[in-house]
């Protein structure tokens, strides 16, 4: 039985909680802008005045980076990996086991609240201005917008499942440095957040295409700039849906194992 009101309350409280940390909003936004400028300039240099590279125009590439930075702002406003690890280590998550709610769902809804707050107060204003003043390629077809929003949402869920599951692995590991390295490497490179998959060497591109990370940034970005178009959109969203199911099952498995094997520190 799914208790909507309860999880809705988590989202609401989390929204309020984000409002407490206004400085956090501004510093996040600041670093988002810095990364945007950095990757924008890097790609400008890489294109070296050419109109297109690898069949993709400079304008489309710039749009890809802007959309990608927007989505990484959205994804970054959820509970970060280190915080989940911290909550496992301090036993906070273990204590939530004695509450009558589902822990992974509770965190997902809390993330909805904080992401929504960050979106309306910081991300939307900034990116709306960017889209007005920069020469970017914006889809005309409302269906493309719809497909993009849907793909971005599924991407958010995939990222959530992976980040939460990786964080919960702390229950089984004493040292989590390795997990962090894998996670951040995959998030920055294999997801296509800063380099689109079409620029990858063949072997790396096919490696990435067998992994869930492409669903987080690459697919929604590429749909937005029209690099994934027509029937490909359905296939790509199909791939995303496949991965959201797989990562969700993975998260459930890790959570089940973890809650069975909970060892509260200093018990």
């Amino acid at each position, binding site marked *: 039985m799914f208790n909507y009101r309860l999880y809705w309350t988590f989202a609401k409280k989390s929204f309020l909680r984000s409002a407490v940390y206004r400085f956090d909003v501004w510093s996040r936004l600041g670093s988002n802008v810095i990364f945007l400028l950095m990757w924008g300039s890097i790609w400008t240099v890489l294109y070296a005045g050419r109109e297109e590279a690898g069949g993709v125009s400079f304008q489309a590439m710039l749009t890809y980076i802007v959309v990608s930075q927007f989505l990484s702002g959205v994804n970054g406003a959820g509970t970060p990996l280190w915080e989940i690890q911290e909550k496992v280590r301090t036993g906070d998550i273990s204590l939530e086991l004695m509450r009558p709610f589902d822990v992974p769902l509770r965190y997902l809804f809390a993330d909805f609240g904080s992401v929504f707050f960050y979106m309306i107060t910081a991300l939307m204003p900034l990116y709306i201005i960017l889209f007005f003043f920069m020469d970017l390629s914006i889809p005309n077809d409302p269906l493309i917008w719809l497909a993009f929003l849907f793909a971005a949402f599924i991407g958010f869920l995939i990222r959530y499942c992976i980040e939460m599951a990786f964080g919960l692995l702390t229950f089984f590991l*004493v040292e989590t440095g390795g997990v962090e390295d894998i996670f951040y490497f995959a998030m920055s490179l294999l997801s296509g957040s800063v380099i689109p998959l079409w620029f990858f060497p063949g072997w790396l591109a096919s490696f990435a295409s067998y992994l869930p990370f492409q669903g987080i940034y690459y697919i929604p970005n590429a749909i937005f700039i029209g690099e994934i178009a027509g029937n490909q959109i359905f296939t790509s969203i199909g791939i995303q849906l496949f991965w959201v199911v797989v990562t969700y099952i993975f998260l459930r498995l890790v959570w089940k194992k973890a809650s069975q094997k909970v060892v509260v520190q200093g018990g």
Partner: protein
Amino acid sequence: MAIIEVEHLMKEFKIAKRETGFLGAMKGLVKREFHTKHAVKDISFTVDKGEMVGYIGPNGAGKSTTIKMLTGILVPSGGTVKVNGIVPYENRQANAKNIGVVFGQRTQLWWDLPTIESFELLKEIYQVSHSRYKENMDTFTEILGLDEFINTPVRQLSLGQRMRADIAASLLHDPPILFLDEPTIGLDVVAKERMRTFIKEINKERDITVILTTHDMEDIEQLCQRMVLIDHGQKVYDGEIAVVKNRFGKIRTLVVDLEQHSTPLTLEKAEVFKEETGRYWIRFNREDISASGVITQITQTHNIKDLTVEEPEIESIISRIYQEGFDGVEQPIPVKSGS
């Protein structure tokens, strides 16, 4: 009617052995050796509805581990637990609705938000009806003075306020059972008193079963009729507090610093049980001899530089019971078996 049944409860933790140095670390990568820590060895007891039981033991005795098994956070390695007819770890969420838990060492409130927000969240979590929520909030506000700080973020509350908020939060959903893990730790005398009064009242008026762990003898004396003593994961005593108090409450320890210690100290009706460079620990039963009686005896042969009389503390009582058993007790202390 037993509301909590614990039988032959056991909990073992596997702890990875860590070897020092580079080679040790390398070895650890390939093969890990574990040693087992028996946090709870074999504990049985039952608690009746409406009872208030002190669950007492020194640090590391297994108190919190037991509480965590009763709440369902830990799965026992052996034995059985039943709380209000439910096996906690098998049906954690159903069990959650029957229990309220307060951990003195950590808050369960939402750290960054005004206190009231945590209460409202708990109202949703436990699906408390609006009218019941209001009733409870009114009662708790009145007794605990929550209105002083209800709009202050939890992180800005004093420890006393935080504990009051925490205990109110644990009772919002009218649980029949309340677990209090060191609820008065770190509180000043006034705040402790307020806490105790509140616990007493809800136990009496709502017939809530309370299990209380604490290191504060006052807590137990004021709140509980019965106590379960555990040490090294095993039950040492289970019965009335009055019995223990009668037996050990009469024992006093006198600590004296003496100027010279060439002549041995011989005393009647009192014994020296520890001696360290001029300092003597003397134990006596205050029914046999008064403190001044002991002091008079000492001054006949020695010069006293300094002295203190120590009250028996729960820690020392426990360790004495554990080390010495119940030898020399005129009336044997009944050890209730977990029937």
